[in-house]
């Protein structure tokens, strides 16, 4: 389990930002770092929670949601960013809004070497695909950063990703 004992409520603060921002669909591939946020979304009757088999499904889901007038958010681990690459051409070509919340692996104190290549490539891959990238290191910055990304995504018709860093989430205990 992850741990950030002093500011453990940052996932709840992010959830509040999503609610204030009118997000009505949340696609996700589960990650331990997102477990609290997923739990909140699943418990909310006004949010359609959509568990995905692969992260690129969520990119297409968000496009369809916007075509129908709904805002969507996409939750994933950094490994999932690599699964999104071609589908992000849908987002960029049509200028669909897209809010991605990415829990990072393969960086701060990583135990599993298999996580490192994609974790180290995450930011560059997103930027190559035209996604604006923001990074959160401290719990106090989480909600504000997500809110800024949400605003630029839905008001600016852009894709924006917030990287929730491994330092923020806490090391995975093995």
């Amino acid at each position, binding site marked *: 389990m992850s741990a950030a004992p002093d500011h453990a409520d940052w996932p709840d603060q992010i959830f509040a930002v999503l609610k204030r921002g009118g997000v009505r669909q949340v696609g996700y591939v589960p990650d331990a770092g997102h477990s609290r946020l997923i739990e909140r979304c699943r418990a909310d009757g006004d949010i359609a929670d*959509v568990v*995905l088999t692969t992260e690129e*499904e969520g990119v*297409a889901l968000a496009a*369809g949601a*916007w075509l129908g007038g709904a805002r969507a958010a996409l939750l994933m681990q950094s490994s999932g960013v690599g699964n999104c690459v071609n589908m992000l*051409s*849908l987002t960029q070509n049509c200028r*669909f809004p897209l809010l991605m919340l990415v829990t990072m692996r393969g960086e701060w104190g990583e135990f599993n070497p298999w996580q490192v290549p994609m974790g180290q490539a995450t930011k560059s891959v997103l930027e190559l695909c035209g996604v604006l990238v923001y990074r959160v290191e401290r719990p106090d910055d989480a909600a504000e950063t997500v809110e800024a990304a949400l605003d630029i995504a839905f008001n600016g018709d852009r894709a924006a990703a917030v990287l929730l860093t491994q330092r923020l989430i806490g090391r995975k205990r093995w």
Partner: protein
Amino acid sequence: MLDRRAAVKLLLADRGDLLVVCGLGAPTYDAAAAGDDDRNFYLWGAMGGAVMVGLGLALARPDRRVLVITGDGEMLMGMGSLATVAMKRPANLAIAVLDNGVYGETGLQPSHTSGATDLAAVARGCGIPVTLEAADDQALATVARIIHESRETVFARLRIAADDPPRVLPLRDGVALKLRFRRALGLEP
């Protein structure tokens, strides 16, 4: 075997307020040949994403019927999305796969459905509640009716002849397609 153009034309005849998402390649040309419409969203890329665009749309607009029209190659690339759809089972979503067992856009190379893969069985196995097949006009008429009237998620495999009819190319500017679709739903750009 069905003629793809005639099949899509039948699916879209008397469409009412149906919203349509088309997978890249021939299904997009088929829908354009049946008559362009602001409520058609054509994919020219994003292979494997058609069903998920349809799911997002269906969840956003439960008051409208949504039909995804795609091919076997595009569906194979996004096969997991059938499992994802089955978790939500939107009553207003139907998926029609034009299955000719070949990749038509790239020179009629055989796809997996020319071998052992049965996409209707895949959809059924994923848990899509209504899975149908049609290979002749009579069965197609039944499928079309169910697509328009079902109160459960529908997956239909339409067995079409493996040909490559003349291309009918609709608008391909993604922003323009998005804006006209949203405008047709009364949404702000």
